[in-house]
């Protein structure tokens, strides 16, 4: 049986709610890893969690755990017989697998919960330490800050566990442990990052995309779905909610002066989001707004737009710069998808000079020309739902497999 010890970090401070957080994390790990390994067992302990498995390799499991929110760090732990020679042999094997440079140092830490084991903690450390020191004369022993730390745990049952490398996890909170939000997902760079940050904070998400065919292309819709698929890598399969928006855009174009149309459009979107929130039993709207980035993202503008809803609108990117967003997009694999050239907000409706300081009273007066309630209900009646997970991204790969 292979084993990885997962440490929660922030979870330890959750007091009575800890069990709920642990359960969410365990469920997430099971969902991600069980397709690889039917023998998977996730057993939460007080401050850490054991992930035990048979078929999957350590590499495959590490690859999965590094992208699961709520994990502070994790360490593969190798099982051997409770026999000093077996422990030494495994220790050498583990050191052979890592990169050692001249000047590196090491330390062996033994933990003995089985008091019948014939060697004391100190003996184990000395014995194991000496075979490593002998095999790697370029390394020195260092107690305070060793480059490599080997942990040997002698368990009460019949096995010993060795652990050498430790990996940093994604941090944050387990997916689904902080309620559910609806993400306004365009095809751009910002909104997927906003989604990612909330997911990392434990929020379960559904993606809402406004599309305006035939003014927007099927490729733009496809792009939003691919972004959803990429985001679901950091959580579970996600609902993709497509809202037909062309009718509303046509009405705005016909009735609202060009420079105020952006404000009215955003207000219409928020009205729809507000209704969706109760339909989908979600608690917050999430979007990718960043202060001052475009016309609709000035404080004045945001205030006028926000006036149509009392639901919380979370803007995790509000204080970030574009280059920080791009950097994160590259890191989490949404950059290449967002970078595809298909426009989401159809150019037909884009105002040439949007008003950056709209006035609420004027906007409300203009909106009187629209049958708002009717338009919102029509859009809601036309929404389509689709469940999207990571495999959506491999669609093309499977389609072209025989050719490539």
């Amino acid at each position: 049986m292979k084993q990885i010890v997962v440490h929660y970090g922030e979870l330890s401070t959750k007091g009575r709610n800890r069990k709920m957080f642990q359960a969410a994390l365990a469920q997430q790990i099971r969902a991600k890893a069980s397709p690889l390994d039917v023998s998977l067992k996730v057993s939460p302990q007080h401050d850490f969690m054991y992930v035990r498995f048979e078929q999957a390799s350590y590499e495959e499991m590490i690859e999965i755990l590094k992208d699961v929110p709520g994990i502070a760090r994790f360490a593969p732990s190798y099982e051997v017989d409770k026999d000093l020679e077996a422990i030494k042999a495994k220790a050498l094997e583990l050191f052979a697998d890592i990169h050692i440079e001249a000047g590196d140092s090491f330390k062996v830490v033994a933990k003995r919960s089985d008091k019948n084991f014939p060697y004391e903690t100190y003996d184990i450390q000395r014995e194991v330490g000496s075979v490593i020191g002998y095999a790697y004369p370029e390394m020195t022993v260092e107690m305070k800050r060793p480059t490599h730390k080997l942990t040997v745990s002698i368990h009460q049952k019949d096995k010993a566990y060795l652990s050498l490398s430790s990996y940093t996890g994604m941090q944050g909170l387990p997916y689904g442990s902080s309620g559910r939000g609806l993400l306004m997902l365009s095809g751009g760079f910002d909104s997927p990052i906003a989604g990612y940050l909330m997911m990392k904070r434990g929020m379960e998400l559904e993606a809402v995309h406004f599309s305006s065919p035939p003014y927007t292309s099927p490729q733009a819709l496809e792009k939003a779905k691919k972004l959803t698929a990429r985001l679901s890598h950091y959580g579970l399969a996600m609902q993709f909610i497509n809202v037909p928006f062309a009718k509303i855009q046509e009405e705005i174009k016909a009735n609202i002066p060009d420079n105020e149309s952006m404000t009215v459009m955003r207000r219409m979107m928020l009205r729809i989001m507000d209704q969706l929130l109760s339909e989908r039993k979600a608690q917050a709207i999430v979007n990718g707004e960043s202060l001052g980035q475009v016309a609709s993202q000035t404080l004045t503008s945001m205030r006028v737009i926000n006036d149509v809803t009392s639901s919380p609108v979370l803007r995790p990117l509000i204080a970030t710069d574009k280059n920080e967003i791009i950097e994160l997009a590259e890191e989490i694999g949404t950059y290449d998808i967002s970078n595809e050239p298909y426009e989401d907000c159809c150019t037909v409706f884009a105002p040439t000079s949007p008003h950056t300081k709209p006035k609420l009273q004027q906007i409300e007066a203009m909106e009187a020309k629209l049958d708002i309630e009717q338009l919102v209900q029509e859009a809601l009646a036309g929404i389509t739902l689709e469940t999207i997970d990571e495999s959506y991204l491999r669609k093309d790969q499977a389609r072209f497999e025989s050719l490539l």
Partner: protein
Amino acid sequence: MIYLDNSATTKPYPEVIETAGTVAERYFANPSSAHQLGEEASALLKQARQQIAQILKVRADEVYFTASGTEANNWVLQGIVDALHSKNTDRKRVLLSAIEHPASLQQIELLQRKGYDVDLVPVDQWGRLDTDKLRDMLDEHVLLLSTMAVNNEVGTVQPLAAIAEIIADYPQLIWHVDGVQAVTTELELLRNKRIDLLTLSAHKFHGLRGVGVLVKKERVASYPLLYGGGQEAGQRSSTENLPAIVASAKALRLADDAQAEARRRLHDFRVQLVTALEEAGWQIFGGAYTSTHIVCAALPPIPGEVLLHAFERMGIFVSTTSACSSRSHNPHATLNAMRVSSNISNSAIRLSLSHTTTQADITAFIQALPKVTQMKGKG
């Protein structure tokens, strides 16, 4: 037919031809078209690019398709060199190894006319780049260094890891590697992280001709090679040759899959060939530094061309040292650079193997060898 001229061109794999046929028929739309057929063609192109990028361990947007390896090398020494120079006008030195392919060497005059200082980095008697000389030639004015991975005439494997280490002190230097001959057995060399530009040619690894690849890392400035519809990220306009491109991606995957096994087998074949040739009194070039799939040998004073035709009469196809130069007047640039005298180099022939070479091919060559060798006795 015993085909031992794989460094000139390889026979396309049947699967590769099948892919090209299917793509030509089913995905005939222009990848730039906005409709669904165009979209499918574009998705397929993207997938092919992705596959090549994964094999070479680079990013998909760093892979550009050209029409040939020659075209890729021309792009490097023209559009890219000019763009590098325009960013830093005090840098105008270009270094080429002395044994580069004519696709690079033939551009020296053009580079000099444009005002660049071009210097050739010499090679040793084995055909390996002289790394000490390279170290002496480097300074902060060098904007580009171009070297090969595997030499096309003699097969010498170039010390890319050592070169990477030497140029580490010159981060401004853009390093181009012509990897055209390396895919058969030395693909791993091409994954060196320090390489900024890399040239490949599909018909050298059982793909179709008409496709070259230039890997251009993000940091490398460039002027477009061809202007027009903006294909290849605006760097090389031209409607994409989708059937051949997809076939190339497939061929590279098959080559990568076959690599480890091919290395072992071809190493064994090379030992057999070299042993037989040496026993028959032939002279072998390149020594221990040669890639397993190329053998360059001579039987002076008999001209290479005569040897070639003598083998041909027995159904064995070999070449004088390079197909590109075998019809020109200076056919032995690499051997000359290795300071092999011309009465010996004129006698050189090249045997080049591939994944598809069999033991029967090697045995047939060794059996034919005495007959050709006895020409010398008859003088």
